């Protein structure tokens, strides 16, 4: 083996853990530090990259995996793909072994524990508080078709962004395909751009390039915290799903990986997430976001994840052939 950047191959919870995550690096690093504090001697090696990069990397390393665990991906869809690709494996954390698959309509873990949710994401609208008055705000997805938003709306391109695909799929489930497509035909006329990067619409809204855009709750609140004039609306019926963590198949240090998952679900772990405006999966942890599980649950749109997974590629292809 030609010298690998100082990877001490001594395993276990107190060993070196390589931690893949697309979530905010500052947050993941903080998680790493917390873990190291709790497990003296351990070293958490945070590998950052966009969701796609991480997944692709996992695939590329399949023959000789380098990562131990993978946390986050803007929802569960990437993890579902990962299951097919056989790059993640099941692990049942002791603390939550009695979790059901679903909790009030939201799937919180994989049937056979290939992933478990760590927090809740809400898909909704980010808007520019200087340009949009409270009373104009859209209540539902349909309200987006209001002429008010013509040329002032942005959403990521489903062809590239998981966030956007989720939007599309959810509408399809809600309206059925024909109407669903009609809806998006119209919606596309409203949009003034459809960037590939998932965070671009939020950015555009903050800058005033657009007035309203599709985003996850925490993006909006993080920006707000940074002082941007943006806020977030939770539509009436909207996809709400968990952001999972899972163990990488045949990782170099499975024990460490498992230990870290446990930590993520532990109170300390959850608190870190909460401090970054995420909605923790554990009700007993207080979060900084104005939202909470109770407050968002009523908006939850029942998601048929299996249908989503099955039709993921098809819908997306249809999208591309329709809108490109």
């Amino acid at each position, binding site marked *: *083996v*030609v*010298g*690998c*950047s*100082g*990877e001490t191959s001594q395993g276990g919870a107190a060993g070196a853990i390589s931690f893949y995550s*697309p979530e*905010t*690096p500052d947050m993941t690093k903080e998680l790493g530090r917390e873990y190291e504090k709790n497990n003296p001697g351990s070293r958490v*090696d*945070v*590998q*950052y*990259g*966009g969701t*796609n*990069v991480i*997944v*692709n*990397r996992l*695939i*590329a*390393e*399949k*023959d*000789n995996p*380098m990562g131990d665990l993978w946390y986050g991906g803007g929802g569960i869809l990437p993890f579902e793909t990962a299951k097919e690709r056989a790059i993640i494996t099941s692990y049942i954390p002791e603390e939550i072994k009695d979790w059901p698959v679903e909790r009030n309509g939201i799937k919180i873990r994989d049937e056979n524990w290939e992933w478990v949710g760590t927090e809740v994401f809400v898909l909704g609208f980010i808007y*520019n508080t*200087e*340009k949009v008055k409270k009373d104009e705000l859209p209540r539902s997805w349909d309200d987006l078709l209001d002429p008010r938003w013509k040329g002032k709306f942005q959403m990521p*391109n*489903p*062809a*590239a*962004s*998981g966030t956007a695909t989720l939007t599309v799929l959810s509408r399809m489930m809600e309206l059925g395909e024909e109407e669903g497509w009609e809806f998006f035909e119209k919606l*596309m006329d409203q949009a003034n*751009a*459809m*960037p*590939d*990067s998932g*965070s*671009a619409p939020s*950015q555009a809204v*903050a*800058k*005033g*390039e657009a007035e309203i855009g599709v985003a996850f709750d925490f*993006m909006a609140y993080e920006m707000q915290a*940074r002082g*941007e*004039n943006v806020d977030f609306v939770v539509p009436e019926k909207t996809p709400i799903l968990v952001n999972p963590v899972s163990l990488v198949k045949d990782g170099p240090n499975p024990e460490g990986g498992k230990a870290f998952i446990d930590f993520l679900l532990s109170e300390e772990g959850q608190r870190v997430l909460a401090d970054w405006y995420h909605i923790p999966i554990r009700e007993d942890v207080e979060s900084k976001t104005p939202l909470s599980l109770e407050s968002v649950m009523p908006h939850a749109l029942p998601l048929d994840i299996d249908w989503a997974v099955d039709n993921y*590629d098809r819908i*997306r292809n249809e999208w*591309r*052939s329709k*809108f*490109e």
Partner: protein
Amino acid sequence: MSRFRFWRRWGGLDLLRWSIVLFFLVFLIVPLLSIFLVSLTGEPVNLFGSLVNPAIFQSTVEKLSGASLEGYRDLWEESRYFHALVNSLKLSTGVACWVTLMCIPMAYAFARTDMPGKKWFAALSTVPLVMPTFIAAYAFTLMFGQTGWVNHIWRALGGDGVLFEIKSMLGIILVQVFFFFPYALWPMVAAFKAADGALEEASRNLGAKSGLTFVMVTLSLAVPGILSAMLLVFTISFSDFGTPIIMAPKELNLIVVEAYREIAGFFNWSGSAILTVVMVAVAALFFWLQRWVIKGREYGTISGKPVVTRPVRHKGALAGLMIYTSVVLAVPLLAVGSIFLSSVATTWGHHALPNGYTLRHYATIFHSSTSNIVNSLVLASGALVLSVIIATFISYFVIRRGSAKLDFLSSMPLVVPGIALGIALIQTFNTAPLHLTGTALLLIIAYTIRRMPYMIRSTMGTMMAIRKEMEEASVNLGASPLLAVVTVVGPLLLPGISAGAILVFVTVIKETSITILMAPTSWAPMSLAVFQNLLRGEFYTASAMSILIIAIVVVLQLVARRLTKEQLY
């Protein structure tokens, strides 16, 4: 000539040639081959691994048995891909032509005049290179977006709406033109450097005014260099996805973006692999075209009867060139200005200027990323050294020994999307026998392979200008061809080399796509930090970071110029 005699003939040089070929074989061809296989199997295959590890060999065989051409069939059925290809070609050709025309006067000014402030202009005109295309696009939004300050001014002046719609083909072209032009500028400067003053004198003596002389002699002689610069810009624009990802209007689709989406959105390796293969094919076509055009145009102008070429001092001309250069540079520099504003902005809403000012972002990066800076410099230098050596010899082999394959080989990375190359490298080197994934070495090699073409383009331009007698003389005086190249051709190549050096160094510093995939945490460079911030939409910090990078590069360049009185400009 029989292999045996061939060997006797070229000795050490030949050894070198083969080792270079080997280098590309291992670090480029095999990875790309595996990509190609992926385009058939849709799954990663590890070729080297298969050689030593029976288990991997097994899985490889299984995957290959599942190979099929259906991906390619779909490709033909999908008219979308075809449109994408056409769009991309339009875009890149447009950009290439525009950039070339725009650069000719500047290149001449740098190469052949005493234009006042040359040094600074030169240093500044590398700035656009430093900005990751995402940032560049972002900067343009800050300027020309609906709420961009330019449009604020525009409306203030009584215009309505926007100067032009930035999320459009035009927008993309503009960004690419103004941020890619240095790629062409430096090789062209080198090309003009190589021209022989005596020829211009002859032309003027035969009655041609300076203008005509320029077109007839100076320009015509620079044609090979200019063409290869043009090709360079073409491929760069062809394979750039940073700009379109942010600026593409929803109806415009480009092949590189398609490829990116296949892999980013669908994890559809076969799809993106296929598109990559297509892109490489297209590039191959253009290379062939270029070689065909400049075939037999490799006239030596650096002759054995040297004549000193005096720089042009004509007042009017200088003034003109100076103004022109400033105007061209103004655009990217204003963009940098905007980035700077956003780097000191608390936030920047829809107003012309930020809502408030702060140094917080700089504090953040200095606190968090000092090590990244060091890493960047080390890595970049490593890649630089490697590039200089390899590029010099490659352009020698290509021009003198006419080994077109080496030319194409070394230039392929230009069109292989960074992410594809990165993945290919990871999957090839993540097991024995060559377990390099996650090492700085592989990172440097990757940088080299990906960025060296820039240097080769510019060294080849110069190489063509060197008369054969030069090295013949040296060989005749007892130097082996190898030594001849090192002691005679090398120094004469200097303009080309230093031109390329700037490109390589700067672009390595900003390189993202490879970095994201391959940089081990212990070696994370600046570009990675920038990208992380970008991806999380933390544009202010990203801006601060870019400004920092720009500053560093500019300073380094001035220093370098101080140290080596290099003759580039």
